[in-house]
Protein backbone atom coordinates (compact mmCIF):
# COMPACT_ATOMS: atom_id res chain seq x y z
CA UNK A 1 0.00 0.00 0.00
CA UNK A 2 1.06 3.61 -0.41
CA UNK A 3 1.80 4.20 3.28
CA UNK A 4 2.72 1.69 5.91
CA UNK A 5 3.73 1.43 9.55
CA UNK A 6 4.72 -1.56 11.67
CA UNK A 7 3.70 -1.62 15.33
CA UNK A 8 4.50 -4.03 18.13
CA UNK A 9 2.09 -3.72 21.05
CA UNK A 10 2.84 -6.17 23.82
CA UNK A 11 3.34 -9.55 22.13
CA UNK A 12 1.34 -8.64 19.01
CA UNK A 13 2.85 -7.35 15.76
CA UNK A 14 0.78 -5.37 13.27
CA UNK A 15 1.35 -3.78 9.94
CA UNK A 16 -1.04 -0.98 9.08
CA UNK A 17 -1.29 0.07 5.44
CA UNK A 18 -3.09 3.18 4.31
CA UNK A 19 -4.14 4.87 1.09
CA UNK A 20 -3.37 8.21 2.78
CA UNK A 21 -0.32 9.60 4.59
CA UNK A 22 -2.34 11.17 7.44
CA UNK A 23 -3.33 8.12 9.49
CA UNK A 24 0.18 6.63 9.29
CA UNK A 25 1.80 9.92 10.35
CA UNK A 26 -0.58 10.15 13.31
CA UNK A 27 0.21 6.56 14.35
CA UNK A 28 3.92 7.22 13.99
CA UNK A 29 3.63 10.10 16.41
CA UNK A 30 1.39 8.26 18.88
CA UNK A 31 3.66 5.21 18.97
CA UNK A 32 7.03 7.00 18.65
CA UNK A 33 8.39 5.59 21.91
CA UNK A 34 7.55 1.96 21.09
CA UNK A 35 10.29 -0.48 20.06
CA UNK A 36 10.75 -1.17 16.36
CA UNK A 37 8.46 -3.88 15.02
CA UNK A 38 10.48 -5.59 12.35
CA UNK A 39 9.98 -9.19 11.34
CA UNK A 40 6.73 -10.72 10.15
CA UNK A 41 3.48 -9.19 11.44
CA UNK A 42 0.79 -11.33 13.05
CA UNK A 43 -1.89 -9.21 11.39
CA UNK A 44 -2.34 -6.77 8.53
CA UNK A 45 -4.78 -3.85 8.73
CA UNK A 46 -5.76 -1.86 5.65
CA UNK A 47 -7.17 1.66 5.69
CA UNK A 48 -8.65 1.95 2.24
CA UNK A 49 -10.75 4.33 0.21
CA UNK A 50 -14.26 2.86 -0.06
CA UNK A 51 -14.12 3.61 -3.81
CA UNK A 52 -11.03 4.63 -5.79
CA UNK A 53 -12.23 8.23 -6.20
CA UNK A 54 -13.03 8.48 -2.48
CA UNK A 55 -9.31 8.75 -1.89
CA UNK A 56 -9.68 12.38 -3.00
CA UNK A 57 -13.34 13.35 -2.89
CA UNK A 58 -14.95 13.30 0.57
CA UNK A 59 -12.29 10.80 1.64
CA UNK A 60 -13.79 7.98 3.64
CA UNK A 61 -11.79 5.22 5.34
CA UNK A 62 -12.91 1.60 5.15
CA UNK A 63 -11.34 -0.59 7.84
CA UNK A 64 -10.22 -3.87 6.30
CA UNK A 65 -7.53 -6.44 6.91
CA UNK A 66 -6.96 -10.11 7.56
CA UNK A 67 -10.17 -10.24 9.59
CA UNK A 68 -13.20 -8.07 8.87
CA UNK A 69 -16.71 -7.61 10.14
CA UNK A 70 -19.59 -7.08 7.76
CA UNK A 71 -21.55 -3.87 8.21
CA UNK A 72 -18.51 -1.89 9.39
CA UNK A 73 -19.12 1.80 8.87
CA UNK A 74 -16.44 3.83 7.04
CA UNK A 75 -14.92 6.71 8.99
CA UNK A 76 -13.92 10.26 8.06
CA UNK A 77 -10.29 10.55 7.02
CA UNK A 78 -9.80 12.97 9.93
CA UNK A 79 -10.52 10.03 12.23
CA UNK A 80 -7.91 7.79 10.60
CA UNK A 81 -6.19 6.98 13.92
CA UNK A 82 -9.49 5.68 15.26
CA UNK A 83 -9.90 3.60 12.10
CA UNK A 84 -6.48 2.06 12.70
CA UNK A 85 -7.34 1.38 16.34
CA UNK A 86 -10.60 -0.30 15.32
CA UNK A 87 -8.74 -2.33 12.72
CA UNK A 88 -6.15 -3.55 15.20
CA UNK A 89 -8.81 -4.39 17.82
CA UNK A 90 -10.75 -6.31 15.24
CA UNK A 91 -7.77 -8.47 14.22
CA UNK A 92 -7.35 -9.59 17.82
CA UNK A 93 -11.06 -9.94 18.53
CA UNK A 94 -11.68 -12.15 15.50
CA UNK A 95 -8.35 -13.80 14.83
CA UNK A 96 -6.49 -14.33 18.07
CA UNK A 97 -6.17 -17.89 19.35
CA UNK A 98 -2.97 -17.73 21.41
CA UNK A 99 -4.57 -16.16 24.48
CA UNK A 100 -8.01 -15.89 26.02
CA UNK A 101 -8.98 -12.32 25.25
CA UNK A 102 -10.89 -10.37 27.85
CA UNK A 103 -12.38 -7.04 26.88
CA UNK A 104 -10.86 -5.38 29.92
CA UNK A 105 -8.35 -2.82 31.06
CA UNK A 106 -5.52 -3.98 33.28
CA UNK A 107 -2.79 -2.53 35.48
CA UNK A 108 -0.07 -4.23 37.50
CA UNK A 109 1.91 -3.73 40.65
CA UNK A 110 4.75 -5.98 41.88
CA UNK A 111 4.12 -8.42 39.04
CA UNK A 112 0.45 -8.91 39.97
CA UNK A 113 -2.38 -7.77 37.73
CA UNK A 114 -5.68 -6.03 38.38
CA UNK A 115 -8.21 -6.73 35.63
CA UNK A 116 -11.14 -4.35 35.16
CA UNK A 117 -13.96 -5.27 32.85
CA UNK A 118 -17.34 -3.76 32.14
CA UNK A 119 -19.52 -2.26 29.46
CA UNK A 120 -18.22 0.75 27.56
CA UNK A 121 -19.00 3.73 29.75
CA UNK A 122 -18.13 1.83 32.92
CA UNK A 123 -14.97 3.91 33.12
CA UNK A 124 -12.51 1.05 32.92
CA UNK A 125 -10.17 2.90 30.53
CA UNK A 126 -10.18 6.05 32.64
CA UNK A 127 -9.66 4.08 35.81
CA UNK A 128 -6.66 2.29 34.31
CA UNK A 129 -5.19 5.58 33.13
CA UNK A 130 -5.68 7.22 36.54
CA UNK A 131 -4.13 4.25 38.34
CA UNK A 132 -1.20 4.42 35.90
CA UNK A 133 -0.78 8.10 36.76
CA UNK A 134 -0.61 7.08 40.43
CA UNK A 135 2.19 4.59 40.08
CA UNK A 136 0.63 1.42 38.70
CA UNK A 137 2.02 -0.10 35.52
CA UNK A 138 -0.49 0.23 32.66
CA UNK A 139 -0.99 -3.09 30.88
CA UNK A 140 -3.76 -2.04 28.55
CA UNK A 141 -7.12 -0.33 28.23
CA UNK A 142 -8.84 -2.66 25.73
CA UNK A 143 -7.78 -6.30 25.98
CA UNK A 144 -6.22 -8.42 28.70
CA UNK A 145 -4.57 -11.49 27.15
CA UNK A 146 -4.77 -14.52 29.45
CA UNK A 147 -2.11 -17.13 28.70
CA UNK A 148 -3.77 -20.49 28.03
CA UNK A 149 -0.96 -22.45 29.64
CA UNK A 150 0.37 -20.35 32.51
CA UNK A 151 -2.73 -18.32 33.33
CA UNK A 152 -0.62 -15.15 33.38
CA UNK A 153 -1.87 -11.92 31.83
CA UNK A 154 0.01 -10.42 28.89
CA UNK A 155 -0.04 -6.67 28.37
CA UNK A 156 -1.52 -5.01 25.29
CA UNK A 157 -0.66 -1.38 26.03
CA UNK A 158 -1.82 0.43 22.95
CA UNK A 159 -2.50 4.16 23.27
CA UNK A 160 -5.38 4.64 25.70
CA UNK A 161 -8.53 5.74 23.97
CA UNK A 162 -10.31 8.42 26.03
CA UNK A 163 -13.77 9.68 25.25
CA UNK A 164 -15.67 12.86 26.08
CA UNK A 165 -15.49 13.82 29.80
CA UNK A 166 -12.71 11.28 30.39
CA UNK A 167 -10.41 13.50 28.31
CA UNK A 168 -10.93 16.48 30.62
CA UNK A 169 -10.60 14.26 33.66
CA UNK A 170 -7.25 12.87 32.50
CA UNK A 171 -5.91 16.33 31.63
CA UNK A 172 -6.02 16.94 35.40
CA UNK A 173 -3.70 14.00 36.01
CA UNK A 174 -1.34 13.86 33.01
CA UNK A 175 0.70 16.47 31.09
CA UNK A 176 -0.90 17.48 27.80
CA UNK A 177 2.16 16.55 25.73
CA UNK A 178 1.30 12.90 26.26
CA UNK A 179 -1.99 13.30 24.38
CA UNK A 180 -2.62 12.88 20.67
CA UNK A 181 -4.75 15.25 18.63
CA UNK A 182 -8.39 15.61 19.67
CA UNK A 183 -10.85 13.98 17.26
CA UNK A 184 -14.23 15.72 17.15
CA UNK A 185 -17.47 14.13 16.04
CA UNK A 186 -16.37 10.50 15.85
CA UNK A 187 -19.04 7.82 16.23
CA UNK A 188 -17.85 7.57 19.84
CA UNK A 189 -18.08 11.35 20.33
CA UNK A 190 -15.01 13.41 21.23
CA UNK A 191 -11.94 11.18 21.35
CA UNK A 192 -8.31 11.66 22.29
CA UNK A 193 -5.49 9.18 22.69
CA UNK A 194 -3.15 9.15 25.67
CA UNK A 195 0.34 7.75 25.16
CA UNK A 196 1.26 5.18 27.81
CA UNK A 197 4.23 6.18 29.97
CA UNK A 198 7.78 4.94 29.47
CA UNK A 199 7.43 2.30 32.17
CA UNK A 200 4.37 0.72 30.56
CA UNK A 201 6.21 0.53 27.23
CA UNK A 202 9.48 -0.76 28.69
CA UNK A 203 7.66 -3.54 30.58
CA UNK A 204 5.20 -4.45 27.85
CA UNK A 205 6.67 -7.91 27.32
CA UNK A 206 6.50 -8.79 31.01
CA UNK A 207 3.48 -10.89 32.02
CA UNK A 208 1.79 -10.48 35.39
CA UNK A 209 -0.11 -12.91 37.60
CA UNK A 210 -3.80 -12.01 37.88
CA UNK A 211 -4.67 -11.07 41.46
CA UNK A 212 -8.04 -9.27 41.37
CA UNK A 213 -10.92 -8.90 38.90
CA UNK A 214 -13.12 -5.83 39.18
CA UNK A 215 -16.43 -5.10 37.51
CA UNK A 216 -16.52 -1.33 37.91
CA UNK A 217 -19.69 0.67 37.36
CA UNK A 218 -19.68 4.45 37.33
CA UNK A 219 -22.34 6.05 39.51
CA UNK A 220 -23.38 6.32 43.15
CA UNK A 221 -23.73 4.98 45.70
CA UNK A 222 -20.23 3.79 46.43
CA UNK A 223 -20.10 0.09 47.15
CA UNK A 224 -18.29 -3.19 46.64
CA UNK A 225 -19.73 -6.67 46.54
CA UNK A 226 -17.91 -9.96 46.10
CA UNK A 227 -19.05 -11.93 43.07
CA UNK A 228 -19.47 -15.70 43.05
CA UNK A 229 -17.43 -17.97 40.78
CA UNK A 230 -20.27 -19.00 38.50
CA UNK A 231 -21.48 -15.45 37.90
CA UNK A 232 -17.91 -14.27 37.31
CA UNK A 233 -17.41 -17.13 34.89
CA UNK A 234 -20.50 -16.30 32.86
CA UNK A 235 -19.84 -12.56 32.83
CA UNK A 236 -16.28 -13.12 31.64
CA UNK A 237 -17.45 -15.39 28.81
CA UNK A 238 -19.48 -12.41 27.66
CA UNK A 239 -16.45 -10.13 28.09
CA UNK A 240 -14.31 -12.43 25.96
CA UNK A 241 -14.12 -12.15 22.20
CA UNK A 242 -12.71 -15.64 21.71
CA UNK A 243 -13.97 -17.80 24.57
CA UNK A 244 -16.19 -19.98 22.37
CA UNK A 245 -13.74 -20.60 19.50
CA UNK A 246 -10.97 -21.56 21.93
CA UNK A 247 -13.14 -24.47 23.06
CA UNK A 248 -11.49 -26.57 25.76
CA UNK A 249 -8.47 -24.31 26.15
CA UNK A 250 -10.74 -21.31 26.77
CA UNK A 251 -12.85 -23.18 29.28
CA UNK A 252 -9.80 -24.37 31.19
CA UNK A 253 -8.15 -20.94 31.24
CA UNK A 254 -11.32 -19.21 32.38
CA UNK A 255 -12.06 -21.83 35.03
CA UNK A 256 -8.56 -21.44 36.40
CA UNK A 257 -8.91 -17.65 36.44
CA UNK A 258 -12.25 -17.51 38.27
CA UNK A 259 -11.35 -20.20 40.78
CA UNK A 260 -7.99 -18.65 41.68
CA UNK A 261 -8.72 -14.91 41.57
CA UNK A 262 -11.34 -13.03 43.61
CA UNK A 263 -13.89 -10.90 41.73
CA UNK A 264 -15.66 -7.82 43.05
CA UNK A 265 -18.38 -5.61 41.59
CA UNK A 266 -17.72 -1.99 42.52
CA UNK A 267 -19.84 1.13 42.14
CA UNK A 268 -18.05 4.46 42.34
CA UNK A 269 -19.27 8.05 42.18
CA UNK A 270 -15.93 9.66 41.20
CA UNK A 271 -12.35 8.79 40.33
CA UNK A 272 -10.85 9.50 43.75
CA UNK A 273 -13.22 7.16 45.53
CA UNK A 274 -12.58 4.51 42.87
CA UNK A 275 -8.84 4.72 43.43
CA UNK A 276 -9.35 4.54 47.20
CA UNK A 277 -11.61 1.49 46.77
CA UNK A 278 -9.06 -0.25 44.55
CA UNK A 279 -6.24 0.42 47.01
CA UNK A 280 -8.39 -0.84 49.87
CA UNK A 281 -9.35 -4.06 48.04
CA UNK A 282 -5.78 -4.59 46.89
CA UNK A 283 -4.43 -4.20 50.43
CA UNK A 284 -6.92 -6.82 51.62
CA UNK A 285 -5.77 -9.53 49.20
Amino acid at each position, binding site marked *: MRHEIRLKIGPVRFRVGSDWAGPVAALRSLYREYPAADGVPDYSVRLEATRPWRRFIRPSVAVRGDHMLPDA*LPLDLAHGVLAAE*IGMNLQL*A*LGERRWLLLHASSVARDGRALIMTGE*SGSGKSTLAAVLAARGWRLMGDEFALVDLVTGEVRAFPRATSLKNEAIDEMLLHVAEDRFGAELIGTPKGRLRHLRPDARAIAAMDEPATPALILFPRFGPPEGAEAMG*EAETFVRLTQASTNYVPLRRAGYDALTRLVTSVPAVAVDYPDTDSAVALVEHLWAGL
Partner: protein
Amino acid sequence: MDEPEATAGVPTRRMLMLGAAGASMVVTIRPALAQTAGSVLTCEIPVPEPRQRGQWIAEDGTVVPPYTKDAVRPPSRPLKGEDVRKALRDRRLLPGTSYEQTQAYTRYMQRLQNGNSGFTCFVSLKMR
Protein backbone atom coordinates in the same frame (compact mmCIF):
# COMPACT_ATOMS: atom_id res chain seq x y z
CA MET B 1 -25.37 -40.03 26.63
CA ASP B 2 -22.39 -37.87 25.74
CA GLU B 3 -20.26 -37.08 28.69
CA PRO B 4 -20.13 -33.51 29.93
CA GLU B 5 -17.46 -32.56 32.40
CA ALA B 6 -18.92 -30.86 35.44
CA THR B 7 -17.09 -28.23 37.44
CA ALA B 8 -19.06 -26.12 39.88
CA GLY B 9 -20.67 -28.40 42.41
CA VAL B 10 -23.97 -30.04 41.68
CA PRO B 11 -26.29 -29.17 44.53
CA THR B 12 -27.49 -32.24 46.41
CA ARG B 13 -30.44 -32.03 48.72
CA ARG B 14 -33.11 -34.48 49.67
CA MET B 15 -36.00 -32.41 48.31
CA LEU B 16 -35.71 -31.84 44.55
CA MET B 17 -37.75 -28.92 43.21
CA LEU B 18 -38.65 -29.85 39.68
CA GLY B 19 -40.01 -26.44 38.69
CA ALA B 20 -42.27 -25.79 35.73
CA ALA B 21 -42.07 -27.84 32.54
CA GLY B 22 -42.16 -24.70 30.40
CA ALA B 23 -39.12 -23.01 31.98
CA SER B 24 -35.67 -23.24 30.39
CA MET B 25 -33.01 -24.89 32.53
CA VAL B 26 -30.23 -25.38 29.99
CA VAL B 27 -28.45 -22.21 28.89
CA THR B 28 -25.64 -22.41 26.37
CA ILE B 29 -22.87 -19.81 26.33
CA ARG B 30 -23.04 -18.03 22.97
CA PRO B 31 -20.16 -16.24 21.27
CA ALA B 32 -19.88 -12.72 22.63
CA LEU B 33 -20.62 -11.04 19.33
CA ALA B 34 -21.33 -7.84 21.22
CA GLN B 35 -17.80 -7.59 22.49
CA THR B 36 -16.34 -8.23 19.09
CA ALA B 37 -18.51 -5.67 17.42
CA GLY B 38 -18.35 -3.48 20.53
CA SER B 39 -14.64 -2.98 19.99
CA VAL B 40 -15.60 -1.81 16.57
CA LEU B 41 -18.72 0.11 17.46
CA THR B 42 -19.09 1.81 14.11
CA CYS B 43 -21.42 -0.31 12.11
CA GLU B 44 -24.50 0.37 10.05
CA ILE B 45 -27.76 -1.30 9.20
CA PRO B 46 -29.23 -0.89 5.72
CA VAL B 47 -33.04 -0.78 5.80
CA PRO B 48 -34.02 -2.78 3.85
CA GLU B 49 -31.12 -4.92 2.61
CA PRO B 50 -29.37 -3.61 -0.52
CA ARG B 51 -30.92 -6.36 -2.64
CA GLN B 52 -34.38 -5.12 -1.60
CA ARG B 53 -33.64 -1.53 -2.46
CA GLY B 54 -36.66 0.67 -3.16
CA GLN B 55 -39.07 -1.45 -1.12
CA TRP B 56 -40.95 0.01 1.82
CA ILE B 57 -41.28 -1.23 5.39
CA ALA B 58 -44.65 -2.31 6.81
CA GLU B 59 -45.74 -1.67 10.40
CA ASP B 60 -44.70 -5.18 11.39
CA GLY B 61 -41.24 -4.75 9.92
CA THR B 62 -41.74 -6.81 6.78
CA VAL B 63 -40.48 -5.54 3.44
CA VAL B 64 -43.31 -4.62 1.07
CA PRO B 65 -43.72 -2.96 -2.33
CA PRO B 66 -43.61 0.86 -2.42
CA TYR B 67 -46.79 2.74 -1.47
CA THR B 68 -48.30 -0.24 0.30
CA LYS B 69 -51.02 1.00 2.65
CA ASP B 70 -49.73 1.81 6.17
CA ALA B 71 -46.13 1.07 5.14
CA VAL B 72 -43.37 3.68 5.49
CA ARG B 73 -40.64 4.83 3.16
CA PRO B 74 -37.20 3.34 3.91
CA PRO B 75 -34.50 5.71 5.21
CA SER B 76 -32.40 7.28 2.47
CA ARG B 77 -29.17 6.11 4.09
CA PRO B 78 -28.31 3.05 6.18
CA LEU B 79 -29.03 3.59 9.88
CA LYS B 80 -25.97 4.24 12.00
CA GLY B 81 -25.43 1.70 14.76
CA GLU B 82 -24.85 4.39 17.35
CA ASP B 83 -28.16 6.14 16.51
CA VAL B 84 -30.01 2.84 16.76
CA ARG B 85 -28.38 2.05 20.08
CA LYS B 86 -29.37 5.42 21.55
CA ALA B 87 -32.90 5.12 20.27
CA LEU B 88 -33.27 1.66 21.78
CA ARG B 89 -31.73 2.66 25.08
CA ASP B 90 -33.61 5.92 25.57
CA ARG B 91 -36.80 4.84 23.80
CA ARG B 92 -36.43 7.80 21.49
CA LEU B 93 -37.08 8.28 17.79
CA LEU B 94 -34.31 7.61 15.30
CA PRO B 95 -32.90 10.94 14.05
CA GLY B 96 -35.03 12.52 11.34
CA THR B 97 -37.82 9.94 11.45
CA SER B 98 -41.46 9.89 12.48
CA TYR B 99 -42.84 7.64 15.22
CA GLU B 100 -44.24 5.27 12.59
CA GLN B 101 -40.90 5.05 10.79
CA THR B 102 -38.95 4.33 13.98
CA GLN B 103 -41.48 1.62 14.88
CA ALA B 104 -41.35 -0.03 11.48
CA TYR B 105 -37.55 0.17 11.18
CA THR B 106 -37.08 -1.26 14.67
CA ARG B 107 -39.36 -4.17 13.90
CA TYR B 108 -37.53 -4.68 10.62
CA MET B 109 -34.23 -4.89 12.51
CA GLN B 110 -35.69 -7.28 15.07
CA ARG B 111 -36.60 -9.64 12.24
CA LEU B 112 -33.07 -9.71 10.82
CA GLN B 113 -31.36 -13.07 10.91
CA ASN B 114 -27.78 -14.16 10.67
CA GLY B 115 -26.70 -13.68 7.09
CA ASN B 116 -28.82 -10.56 6.50
CA SER B 117 -26.97 -7.26 6.06
CA GLY B 118 -26.97 -5.43 9.37
CA PHE B 119 -27.60 -8.47 11.52
CA THR B 120 -24.22 -8.51 13.26
CA CYS B 121 -24.51 -4.80 13.89
CA PHE B 122 -27.99 -4.99 15.36
CA VAL B 123 -27.17 -7.91 17.65
CA SER B 124 -24.13 -6.14 18.97
CA LEU B 125 -26.21 -3.07 19.78
CA LYS B 126 -28.84 -5.02 21.64
CA MET B 127 -26.28 -6.84 23.71
CA ARG B 128 -24.42 -3.79 24.96
